[in-house]
């Protein structure tokens, strides 16, 4: 019943869909999951755009994918015969990978992922130097974003090389002693250590330095009590050490040294660095899955297709700050439809708030599709 309803709605969309064809679309493998089936139809290729559109119209798939890789024979059913030629670099940020995923509402999860996405873009542009025109961001149709990098220099990178990129943005394998120099200095009779930072430098060196300076500035601006509390939040910093740090930040002579890039009392200050790194790095992490991908042959959702678990469109995002999936990825109309709510839920779609309680209600078509696809309601 539900599936039938969704399929009918999807069909209407696929009569005239807005598909963004992937570059070198004839070289890609396509894969689909149809309504009412579990297995995936794989190893499909299309040598003309119309044929892909026909497939969508005839089969009305619940989920549609294409391969990040392109092949000599995309429809061959094993890797050897497919003959890998290269692959886009794809980053897949999904709220399911957030450590706190279960506790967040749909909107909160999307918002959090968006912040990770902003960080990712900063890495890609500032550090990796990709041109913005080679980076495309898509809303995944569910709880995440995909970021496609199509710079020709990355197409042939193997999975180990891609892994290095992933490690970079997640700060995995970051070795502080490789990045921040520790120098012994004479302090009266004793030997102390000083950390040398340089915000002008590239890579993590500069990132960490800038983060430290920004953090110090913020702490310095705060009232004493608040600053101390803020410092104490950091693992390993107690009241005494917090006071020491706060006082250093208000000592003109010492501030001067920090501005020169020298941080004395290395041991205390080193404690601050770790949490700062966590903040800068892309922090998605789940045990089983790579949050961002080094895979050179994975399947990604076809831009412009519909996600079977939300009815939302995989949508190109041009203005990230303003993008609102529950508005911009909605394709269905506002004819009123009767649904039977099984699980009460709240959602804001198309600027309208819906608070649905158990029982039969009338809602616009787009809310109906979303609720039914997410299994919150049935079609009545």
């Amino acid at each position: 019943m539900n599936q039938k309803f969704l399929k009918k709605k999807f069909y209407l969309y696929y009569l005239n869909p807005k598909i963004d064809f992937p570059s070198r679309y004839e070289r890609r493998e396509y894969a689909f999951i149809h309504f009412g089936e579990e297995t995936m139809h794989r190893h499909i290729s299309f040598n003309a755009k119309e044929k892909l559109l026909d497939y969508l119209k005839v089969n009305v798939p619940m989920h549609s994918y294409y391969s990040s890789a392109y092949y000599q024979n995309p429809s061959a059913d094993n890797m050897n015969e497919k003959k890998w030629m290269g692959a886009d670099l794809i980053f897949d940020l999904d709220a399911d990978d957030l450590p706190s995923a279960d506790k967040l509402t749909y909107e909160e999860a999307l918002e959090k992922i968006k912040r990770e996405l902003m960080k990712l873009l900063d890495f890609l542009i500032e550090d990796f130097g990709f041109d913005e025109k080679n980076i495309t961001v898509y809303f995944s149709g569910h709880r995440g974003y995909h970021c496609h990098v199509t710079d020709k220099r990355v197409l042939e990178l193997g999975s180990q090389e891609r892994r290095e990129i992933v490690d970079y943005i997640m700060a995995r394998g970051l070795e502080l002693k490789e990045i921040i120099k520790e120098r012994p200095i004479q302090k009266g009779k004793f030997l102390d250590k000083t950390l040398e930072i340089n915000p002008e430098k590239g890579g993590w060196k500069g990132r960490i330095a800038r983060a430290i300076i920004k953090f110090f500035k913020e702490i310095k601006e705060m009232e004493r009590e608040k600053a101390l509390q803020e410092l104490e939040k950091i693992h390993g910093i107690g009241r005494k050490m917090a006071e020491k740090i706060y006082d250093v930040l208000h000592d003109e002579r010492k501030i001067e040294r920090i501005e020169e890039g020298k941080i004395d009392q290395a041991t205390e200050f080193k404690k601050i660095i770790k949490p700062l790194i966590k903040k800068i790095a892309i922090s998605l992490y789940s045990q089983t899955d790579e949050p961002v991908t080094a895979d050179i042959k994975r399947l990604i959702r076809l831009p412009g297709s519909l996600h079977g678990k939300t009815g939302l469109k995989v949508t190109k995002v041009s203005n990230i700050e303003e993008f609102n999936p529950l508005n911009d990825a909605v394709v269905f109309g506002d004819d009123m439809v009767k649904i039977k709510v099984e699980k009460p839920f709240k959602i804001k779609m198309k600027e309208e708030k819906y608070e649905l309680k158990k029982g039969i209600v009338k809602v616009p078509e787009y809310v109906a599709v979303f609720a039914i696809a997410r299994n919150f309601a049935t079609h009545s």
Partner: protein
Amino acid sequence: MDLFKIAKYPFIEEAKEWVRKEKIDVEEILFDGIYERARNRGVERVMQALYKGIINDAILLNEVDCMMEVLSYPIARMLVVAIESDYLLRRYALAEAKKAYENMKRDSPEIIIEIGKEFGIEFKDGCIHFTDYLKFAPTWDIKWKLVNRELRQGYVRLDKNEIARLLQEAIRKKIYDELSYLFAPQEVKKVFKEEIIAIRNKIALKERKETEKYEDINFEDFPPCIKNLISAIKSGINVPHVGRFTVVTFLNAIGQSTNEILKIFSSIPDFNEEKTLYQIEHITGKISGTIYSTPKCDTIRTWGLCYPDELCKKIWHPLIYYRKKRRK
């Protein structure tokens, strides 16, 4: 044409061109008496590669010295190909690359840039693009991981020696790849008949030594992190570099041979025997002299590869886990 330059770097395009221009053919190099010196030096190159892992610089005082040095290179290559041993091939490619590395370290930056260009590496104010960096850098070494490098606007900052080190890898790869597809002319086997036999015997001896069975090990005694990694590797799941590194250092530390370690890796999706072998031999100190030690639990944990069990609470290093388990 700078003969001194091509004598030091006989693998560059310019050297090939010079041989072509001089119109010296294979026949002459192999039989003509005046090239005796080049032939001897060619044999020496291969011997040194096999015995010492690096080829010594020849003394180059005049143009004739240089000529002989340049010609000894194709001779050495023919000899290596004629011996038909992958073991020698790997060793030889590395030894030539190391020799070039030593020279590049002493040479001017211009030469390094020139050689880099042969490998399609573009330089920008002494920096190279990260994709080139990733192609050649030994990123299983923490120091070389991209995350620990200064990366800005797509370019990685390296000092001269580091660039030379990257080029060493590029050169090694080039020589290995080229020689893998070559066949030696029949005459080579005749001219160097005795040398070929001697070298083959030596290789057989070395290889036997390396494949000898080491002490019996029991997979069940491995710490969970290593077990996990090995099962992942065996079932064809892509394991991060640091994970592979950990496994190699661990197996080496408990006395597994290179070949046994290699076997474990043979099912990874992008398995490349030559590359993997090279990495194993590097990590285990067979070719670099430095043996990398197995990372501590702390480190493994930060890589997200730690899956502790009860015994793990009492230890701080995977090898200690293994030893404790064995003693039981």
